[in-house]
C-alpha cells in the first residue's frame, strides 16, 4: 500500500462512524520501490490529498523532517519538495501492518501490501 492510497482510506462505512479519518497507520514491514519521478503528476495529486494526513504519514515513516507541517501555498517551483513528496507518496510500500478506525478501534489488516477494508454485514 502506497502512502498516497492511505490518504484516501476511511472507516466511514462502519455503522455509526461519523468521520472515520484519518486511520491510525501502524507499519510492521515496508519496502521502498523506485518509480519514475513525474513532478506534474505530484502537483496534480496534491489538491486531492489531505495535507494533515500526508504529514501524519511522513511522521509514521520517520520522514517528517522532509515535509512541512503546513501545506505550502505553491509547490510548482519547489522541485526538491516535489521529489520528497514523490518518494513519500509513491515509493514507500507498506507490506505488513494495520489501519485503525479512530472512532471504534476497528482494525483493518494490511497483508502483503493490500489493505483489507471489507466490513462484516453486521458492521454496515
Amino acid at each position: 500500500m502506497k502512502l498516497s492510497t492511505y490518504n484516501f482510506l476511511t472507516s466511514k462505512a462502519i455503522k455509526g462512524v461519523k468521520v472515520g479519518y484519518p486511520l491510525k497507520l501502524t507499519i510492521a514491514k515496508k519496502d521502498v520501490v523506485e518509480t519514475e519521478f513525474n513532478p506534474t503528476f505530484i502537483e496534480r495529486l496534491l489538491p486531492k490529498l489531505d495535507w494533515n494526513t500526508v504529514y501524519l504519514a511522513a511522521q509514521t515513516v520517520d520522514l517528517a523532517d522532509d515535509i512541512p507541517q503546513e501545506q505550502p501555498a505553491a509547490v510548482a517551483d519547489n522541485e526538491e519538495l516535489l521529489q520528497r513528496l514523490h518518494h513519500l507518496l509513491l515509493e514507500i510500500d507498506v507490506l505488513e501492518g494495520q489501519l485503525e478506525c479512530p472512532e471504534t478501534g476497528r482494525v483493518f489488516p494490511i497483508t502483503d501490501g493490500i489493505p483489507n477494508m471489507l466490513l462484516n454485514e453486521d458492521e454496515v
Partner: protein
Amino acid sequence: MARMRMKKLEEFLSGVDGFEKPKILLEQYPTPPHIASCVLYNVQAQYFDLEDKLVGDLGCGCGMLSIGSFLLGAQLTIGFELDPDAIDIFRNNVTEMEIPAIDCVQTNVLELTGSKWENAFDTIVTNPPFGTKHNAGMDMKFVETGIHLATGAVYSLHKTSTRDYIHKKSKDWKVKGEVVAQLNYNIDNSYKFHKSKSVDIEVDFWRFDVTEKEL
C-alpha cells in the same frame, strides 16, 4: 514510458494469470488479453487517458486492466476488489511482473461512492460483472461508481444488447457516453451451466466523458 505497441501489450498481458475457480455469484469472467490490450491501447492512443494518469480499476479481479494500464504509462493504478481469491492472484501477478506502480484495496466497489475516493482519479477502467442472473444492474452500478470517482473519463465493457439503455442512463447522468468499438468477447466454458465449449458474446467498449457530470 514510450508507448507500447498493441501486439507487444497483448504478449505481456498473456502472462497475467486469471481466476482459478471463477465464482458464479460474482460473475467472474477473466478479461482476455486480446480484449484488454485492444481496449487499453485505444484508451491511450485515441484519448491519452493512461499515460501519466492516476487510474482506478473497479473490480480489478486478477489485475489484467490494472497491469495493462501500468504498461501503457499510468503513473499509479489502484485496483479495487472484493474477492480474496482474486486478490491473491492479483498480488502474485504484480509481484511476478515486478510492477512498482500498482496498488490494490480489498473493498466493496459499491461502497466507494461518497467516500474520499470521489473525484480522486483521472481515469477509471472497469470490466464489470455483466449484470445478468442474480446480479441484475450490477454493470451500471459499477459505471455509476466510476463516474463518481473519475474527473476525466470512465471506460467500461457492456453487452451490446444493453446499448440503448446505457445511452439513456448517460443522458440522465449528464455524461457523454459513446461506443468506441464493438468486440467479440469469447468466454471459455468457465461454468458448468455453459453447454457449449466456449461462447462468443457481443460486447460494447464504452467511453464516458465525465467532465460535465451531474450526479
